[in-house]
């Protein structure tokens, strides 16, 4: 098992090196940062000085190695547009995205698994059929449309909830949170529903179909034949077996929530990392774009690793250790 973990960690590093190369290549091949940073009126001396400051005069492999070394220490260079360190800018924006992702991820997970189990157990009930039909909307409507619909109903027509921004935030250390004020919490509702709806329906439909499959298994029949309560059959025996195939997808979907926050943040003008990235694209702010790319891939690689390790925790058949190798 240790060998397996080491191998997986090693693979993760290789993936990150490749992503790093892609991110770094953007510096060389997309736009010219000098053009972006210096206006029309510039001297050749200005250009040279900036090239040296940014390290653009060095050979490619050296630049790449430096880039990686810096990135590993959380140093992603200086934003072309704002002239401030990218790491600072991102750490200012990260709380907004992470809080949004946390709320929508929890929503997607709890409601998704709950409804999935419900619709599987009550396979033929009216409520299940209504839920299943409604869920089709969740998977088929594009995120921005859901966001705009929600804004139209709850902000424009009813005026209950704000249509943009985070509301009032409280500063705790370096972290700005919207959890502590009423307006901050209200502001979270629409964006987190918009962001989590797709994942929620996906998780629900997946849990349902896996659970139906598990409920057909002999060991469920045998559990019933042993006289166990329905609750124990459904949750102790069926749900745990359902989770084994569900974990991978759920893990990746939670990662996708952060990655897809871009759209939701744009619709709701949510001051998070996604919106930062969109703005960075408009200004060809390569260091910000590269940092965003790196962070998202670190996250996905990390989630993948955790998912694989969770398998070991849940499924004893994979724990091939000294005893029964």
């Amino acid at each position, binding site marked *: 098992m240790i060998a397996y973990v080491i191998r997986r960690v090693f693979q993760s590093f290789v993936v990150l090196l490749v992503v790093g190369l892609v991110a770094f290549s953007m510096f060389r091949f997309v736009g010219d940062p000098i053009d972006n940073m210096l206006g029309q009126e510039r001297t050749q001396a200005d250009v040279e000085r900036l090239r040296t400051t940014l390290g653009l005069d060095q050979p490619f492999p050296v630049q790449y190695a430096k880039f990686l070394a810096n990135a590993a220490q959380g140093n992603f260079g200086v934003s072309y547009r704002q002239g401030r360190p990218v790491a600072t800018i991102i750490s200012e924006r990260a709380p907004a995205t992470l809080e949004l992702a946390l709320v929508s991820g929890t929503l997607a997970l709890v409601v998704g698994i709950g409804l999935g189990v419900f619709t599987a157990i009550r396979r033929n009930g009216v409520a299940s059929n209504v839920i299943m039909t409604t869920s089709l909307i969740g998977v088929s409507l594009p995120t921005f449309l859901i966001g705009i619909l929600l804004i139209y109903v709850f902000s424009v027509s009813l005026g209950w909830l704000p249509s943009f921004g985070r509301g009032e935030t409280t500063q705790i250390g370096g972290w700005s949170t919207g959890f502590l004020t009423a307006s901050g919490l209200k502001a979270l509702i629409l964006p987190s529903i918009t962001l989590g709806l797709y994942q929620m329906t996906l998780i629900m439909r997946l849990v349902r179909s896996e659970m139906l499959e598990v409920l057909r298994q002999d*060991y469920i029949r045998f559990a019933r034949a042993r006289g166990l*309560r329905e609750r124990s059959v459904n949750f102790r025996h069926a749900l745990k077996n359902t989770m084994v195939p569900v974990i991978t997808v759920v893990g990746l979907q939670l990662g996708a929530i952060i990655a897809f926050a871009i759209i939701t943040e744009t619709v709701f003008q949510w001051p998070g990392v996604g919106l930062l990235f969109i703005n960075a694209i408009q200004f060809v702010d390569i260091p910000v774009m590269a940092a965003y790319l790196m962070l998202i891939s670190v996250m996905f690689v990390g989630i993948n690793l955790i998912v694989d390790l969770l398998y070991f925790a849940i499924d004893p058949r994979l724990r091939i250790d000294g005893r029964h190798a």
Partner: protein
Amino acid sequence: MSQPVLSVRDLIVEIPTRHGLLKPVDGVSYDISPGEILGVVGESGAGKSMTGNAVIGLLDRPARIASGGIYLNGERIDNLSLAQLRRYRGKQIGMVFQDPLTSLNPLLPIGDQLTETIQEHLGVSGGEAHNRAVAALDEVGIPAAKERIGSYPHEFSGGMRQRVVIALALCAEPSLLIADEPTTALDVSVQAQITSLLKRLCRERGMAVMLVTHDMGVIAETADRVAVMYAGKLAELGPVREVITSPRHPYTDGLMGSTPLASKGKRRLHQIPGNMPRLGQLPDGCAFHPRCPYTQDRCKADPGPRLKTCDGRAACWFPLDGAQAAKGVA
């Protein structure tokens, strides 16, 4: 004679389908006494599993009990609600399925599966349940039960897993065990061990056992009486020796036809020419008449023969006597 543990009376199981009402179990009656093993044989689709599932209330929809009665130690159980019936499952009626590889939850140690069953039915403390779980594994012949109790199902061989399944079915000390082809999925080498285990447990506990199998050798070695099923009905029911040595129903005779009972090796049921008719297309009269070498006009007329309307042992208008069977026809 003591009261039977299980009495099945005129049991009819129905399945409503688009093409009409099917009766996979049609008017089956039998008793099983304490300490007795009733073997149930018949071709695939004869309704053996349906009968067992009906007794423990595990019929898959849309199948349902249409009429008849099921009595356990004199109490009627076929009309109980699911919640009431659940208390009988595991506690009064144990059930063992065909495939031990899929009968156990792969994610729970076998000890947990045992203790949850014991605690559910016997209401004992966790420590006591643990001790009983070890004892149950001991009883079915799991070596080093104390050490193996934390093991997961995949850490056991097929034969050992079926022993665990039997321990699970019996850990709350039911008075009736339904074993639906308990050895079919096992290696030939361990089949005999499992059947002799069942036989031993039946004798020691005075338990009634319904043993469904395709293996006439198993029936001959373990069962006290045998019920032969054909197309949802009982074809023949009687003491195992008599049924095997002098079958009265032509179908039983066909099954035994060339069964080399004494010899080892292949002991499967004899192949009778033709197939059992599908449930939706049963012929009038005796369902066996298209394949029967002794068919006469009366056999084709409605209503067909029943155990009750015939001699009580074979549902046949023209039961064989020993001489006829020995001669053999066809």
